[in-house]
């Protein structure tokens, strides 16, 4: 095995892993705050992809504007959904289940709306970054490098936000104990909206980043949510480093696995591996009880 091939696989693994991590981070944040398994999370990624398709592909916007627009549109949509659909369900009995089904229904609605508005064909999204870079024997396109760097920036910003700012601390407080947080004067409902919006925005950002590398289609969400679930299981619910570590592990398994085995074998190995991890350590690699 040549060393360059390994490096190439490693770079691809990092790119996939960071973006899986971004998506899973949002899923995990929403679950931590509201106890909702957001089945419509993959659709947020899909919407991010379409923002990139229209702004970069059709209207020739530059990358930064597209990214900001993608994060803002998907984030606001997330906050709106939380306010109108999920929050009224939180006071009802069996909230976890009803909100799960509400999310499933929402995923269908968004998917069909996408088919109706954007068409059901796969769309290629032109990249805002053109060209390739040679590093030793390793070749990487600029768009992939950008995806790695921007994902890293987003995760760092989010970590700083959650750890250092007052609002970030409030979010963590609500995730730990709703009642205690409310007693400290934190408005739990506002924090919920905000966290839901941030979670969705992260998936939207990943969508904008990955759209030029893969295609966009209305049916992207289903596959993406499966990956995000795997990452969350690996890393542990509600843990930021866990989501990133889980994302990287999955990215490396997929990237290196496909060098040595067929895709179904890689998938079967991944699932068996994750099931074993879950049985031995149900809280995930870095999660808490």
């Amino acid at each position: 095995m040549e060393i360059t091939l390994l490096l190439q696989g490693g770079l691809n693994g990092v790119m996939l892993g960071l973006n899986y991590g971004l998506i899973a981070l949002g899923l995990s944040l929403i679950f931590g705050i509201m106890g909702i398994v957001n089945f419509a999370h993959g659709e947020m990624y899909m919407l991010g992809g379409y923002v990139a398709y229209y702004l970069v592909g059709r209207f020739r916007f530059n990358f930064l504007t597209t990214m900001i627009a993608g994060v803002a549109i998907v984030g606001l949509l997330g906050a709106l959904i939380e306010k109108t659909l999920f929050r009224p369900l939180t006071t009802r009995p069996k909230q976890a289940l009803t909100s799960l089904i509400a999310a499933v229904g929402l995923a269908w609605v968004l998917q069909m709306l996408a088919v109706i508005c954007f068409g059901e064909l796969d769309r290629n999204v032109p990249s805002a970054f053109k060209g390739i870079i040679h590093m030793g024997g390793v070749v990487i396109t600029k768009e992939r490098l950008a995806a790695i760097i921007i994902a890293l920036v987003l995760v760092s910003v989010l970590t700083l936000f959650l750890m250092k700012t007052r609002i970030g601390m409030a979010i963590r407080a609500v995730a730990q104990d709703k009642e205690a947080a409310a007693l400290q004067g934190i408005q739990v409902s506002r924090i919920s909206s905000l966290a839901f919006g941030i979670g969705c925005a992260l998936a939207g950002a990943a969508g904008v980043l990955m759209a030029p590398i893969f295609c966009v289609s209305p049916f992207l969400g289903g596959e993406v949510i499966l990956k995000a679930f795997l990452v969350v299981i690996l890393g542990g619910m509600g843990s930021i480093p866990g989501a990133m570590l889980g994302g990287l592990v999955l990215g490396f398994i997929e990237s290196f696995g496909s060098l040595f085995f067929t895709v179904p074998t890689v998938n079967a190995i991944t699932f068996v591996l994750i099931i074993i991890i879950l049985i031995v350590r149900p809280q995930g690699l870095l999660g808490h009880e």
Partner: protein
Amino acid sequence: MNKRSTTVWIGYGALLGLLLTIPLFTDEAYVFHILCLIGINIIFACSLNTILNIGELNLAHAAFMGIGAYASTLLVMRLSFSFWLAMPLAMVAAAIISLAIGFLTLRFKGAYFLLFTFLFAELVRILLSNFWIGLFGGIPGLTNIPRPSIQIPWLFHLEFSSNKDFYYLILVMVVITVFVMRRMDQSRLGMVFRAISQSETLTESIGISSMKFKILGCAIGCLFAGLAGSLYAHFVRIITPADFSIHAVLTPIAYVVVGGMGSVFGPVIGTSFLMILSHFFLREFGLYELLLYGVIIVLIIRFMPEGLISLPRVISPWFGKLLTRE
């Protein structure tokens, strides 16, 4: 027998009579095709409801239906068992596998059990699609599954080859399932399940092993999932791994939640309502069919979280207001 239960029994009788006489009104194979599918889905939704009753959501429930379907098909086609023997064996197979899974995973709390069952569902799909293709048929699945028949030498011979005949078989199975579910719901066992779903700690404090009963509840649910799978395989006559993937369980969950979780008739009402809606009324809308379907589900959950079964309770205050205004 008091007055209320008499009316209830008359109601059941009338409903059953109506269902039995449907063949007098129509002859269309399509109608019976859909009715059979509704019946199979009712059995599946009831079995899912059993597991929801112990306070867990099993995302691999369709995989257990798949285990039933593949077990029954392979027994009939490869080992030439009779359908009437293969069906109970398929049910038992699904239940036994669920026992093993239950021992391993029911100690996980809340979301982790859900995530594990999600992994298990995907693993079953991957194994059925890509491995032992000679046995399981790979992604295209198994085809030409025979319809069952009853043959008692010199007495009679009954083929369930037409959709209309199969409808009676399904009807019998649905009645048996609902009857068992109702008896279980009213028994001590049903009470223990409800207690566990409300508070595991309190249930254990009065000396009930919640783990034991959760495993039992899961196995009972999977037993009926196996039944639904076996009936599905021999009715549709083609099974593929995709039929039992994670996506295949989301629609039935919607049936249960829309109908009303926890009650015996909730899943029955939810399944009938949504399936009749989507197969007989929304077909005209083409592209908008799934969109409307999703919107209806979201609206029902948003405004009637306890499901359609709570409709009389939701509406009655309005009627009350109307009456007092007069």
